[in-house]
């Protein structure tokens, strides 16, 4: 048996993999408030961040936590907060502020059973639509997820990269099972994964810097608070100076910019994995911990000669419609596996050519969906009873 390199491998929880990914990406400031099942992220960072010269603060609530990471981000830090259902609800207003003011930051939601306090300790994936539309007003958002620790580490680094690239908050939408599950994580050497740093303006001191005037490539170079450019940041509709405006043309252009900079980048932002999809007659689509159960079904049925494949989504928003459409083409039917009442199921139906062939295998009772649960739905679709 091969002996492995102990130094770079850890047997840790998903929540700790988020911590490792964030540190790898250059996290400098974290603000949070304790809530199950995300608390391990705060606990780990309280110890690890100051040891690396970064800062951790436990705020008075999740509202303050979200606000604090926006404030710190404007001083040039890479920032993050982590929470679960009720805390994520509290963060929505400030999340919208980060969208509007175009402040890069990462928000982790370790999903638990809702609505309201729900069941604090059990799994769900029912905040998918809240991640998309939880804050008010027309906007676009990036939300990412993963089903295992290696992917979770990588996608955490990517969350920071996308936040910087698109100057937007990025939601890392994981779930209780992935957050608490322990498995091996191999931490890559520095430089092995790409880390995107902040794009700073090249405008020199004394020349007007327009914080909200996109470059030709659509990107908005930043200038840190405390630097040579003094400008205004606001949650109001604003002009290229960051100064409030009620001019309809300014409002039209800004809202278009906020939506287009993400929605037009669907193909660049889409992260997904295809398992046995090429010759598949039946396609499962899943994400997060549910995708593990779905892959188990695919492997089990493949052994029985059933041509089945899995499309695992790592990007949930902007919805990777092209990948879903392409992988669904020509399949006998498509089964969406998730732990809610059909939030991604509806998106898949919108994306595919034959929405009548899309089915749902789900659980929303706090119990982790198993391969047996999915198998029962497959049997029903195939007319075999349960």
């Amino acid at each position: 048996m091969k002996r492995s390199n102990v130094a770079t491998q850890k047997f840790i929880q998903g929540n700790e993999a988020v911590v490792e990914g964030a540190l790898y990406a250059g996290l400098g400031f974290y603000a949070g408030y304790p809530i199950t099942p995300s608390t391990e992220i705060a606990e780990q960072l309280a110890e690890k961040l100051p040891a690396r010269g970064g800062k951790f603060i436990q705020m008075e609530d999740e509202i303050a936590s979200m606000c604090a990471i926006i404030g710190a981000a404007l001083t040039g830090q890479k920032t993050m907060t982590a929470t679960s259902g009720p805390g994520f609800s509290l963060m929505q207003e400030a999340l919208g502020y980060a969208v509007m003011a175009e402040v890069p930051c990462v928000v982790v939601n370790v999903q638990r059973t809702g609505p309201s306090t729900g069941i604090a300790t059990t799994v769900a994936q029912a905040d998918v639509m809240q991640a998309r539309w939880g804050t008010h007003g027309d906007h676009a958002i990036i939300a990412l997820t993963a089903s295992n620790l290696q992917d979770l580490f990588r996608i955490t680094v990517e969350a920071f990269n996308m936040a910087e690239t698109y100057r937007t908050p990025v939601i890392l939408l994981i779930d209780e099972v992935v957050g608490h599950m322990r498995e091996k994580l191999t931490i890559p050497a520095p430089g092995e994964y790409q880390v995107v740093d902040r794009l700073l303006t090249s405008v020199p001191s004394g020349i007007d810097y327009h914080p909200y005037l996109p470059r030709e490539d659509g990107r908005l170079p930043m200038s840190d608070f405390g630097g040579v450019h003094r400008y205004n940041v606001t949650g109001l509709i604003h002009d290229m100076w960051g100064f409030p405006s009620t001019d309809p043309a300014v409002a039209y252009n800004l809202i278009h910019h906020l939506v287009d900079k993400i929605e037009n980048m669907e193909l660049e932002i889409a992260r997904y994995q295809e398992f046995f999809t090429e010759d598949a007659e039946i396609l499962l689509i899943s994400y997060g911990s549910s995708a593990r159960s779905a892959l188990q079904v695919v492997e089990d049925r493949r052994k029985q000669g059933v041509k089945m494949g899995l499309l695992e989504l790592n990007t949930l928003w902007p919805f990777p419609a092209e990948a879903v459409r392409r992988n669904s083409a020509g399949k006998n039917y498509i089964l969406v596996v998730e732990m809610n009442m059909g939030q991604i199921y509806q998106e898949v139906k919108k994306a595919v050519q034959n929405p009548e062939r899309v089915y749902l295998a789900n659980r929303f009772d706090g119990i982790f969906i198993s391969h047996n649960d999915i198998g029962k739905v497959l049997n029903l679709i195939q007319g075999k009873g349960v």
Partner: protein
Amino acid sequence: MPVKRYLRQRFFPQLWCAGCGHGQIMASLIRAIEELGLQKNNVVVVSGIGCSSRMPGYLDFHTLHTLHGRALAFATGVKMGRPELNVIVPMGDGDASAIGGNHLIHAARRNINITAIVMNNNIYGMTGGQSSPTTPVAAKSTTAPLGNIDPAFDLVELAKGAGASFVARSTTYHSKEMQNMFVKAINHKGFSFVEVLTQCPTYYGRKNEGVSPTEMMKKFATTTTSIGSPKKKENPELIERGVFVDQERTEYASSYCEMINQMRKQK
């Protein structure tokens, strides 16, 4: 004195009503910053939502206009991100003590080096004259048409109770005193809290006083008195002005930096 040097004149005229006290407070703040000799690039002004919160937009510093009530939470992030910056947070009475009350008491408890200025005009101005937590009992507002029955907060007592290490009060009538308090507050190493009584002639004045803005402002001369003045004994209704608390206590951001240094030494 060149107040204009600190203004973003591009964005004038400002939106405050004629006779509003907020401009006077902004002028005193500018004079205090001039007196302290602070570099513009070392000052961050963070505000919430409301009439008072429009102040940063007009000031030529790093300015952050945030969410209703949340200015101190944003400011905490700014201060932790770059502790060397001077962080000043102008707020309204509703902004600071109703929706933002929780952040106010916790910023005070932490004793983080931020200067909070509450521009208290006893009313919600931006939304058109509703009661705030500092609207006096019996005063009228659009949400208390028969007179307010909610007891009011004494903001100085609130800040003291929450542990602010510098607490002061002044008024728009006492502009030089206000300026001196701002100087002391910004110089203070810890959480400093300054309440400035100010006039809202448009909403509070029209419903309750029926006098000119000048008369409203002049009233602060007779309704307030310096701390320790014998007048207070004769008339307990008088509101005291001055510095109520000025003490040294461990400051949050610097003690965090100290902890980082210790951790790095141990490594």
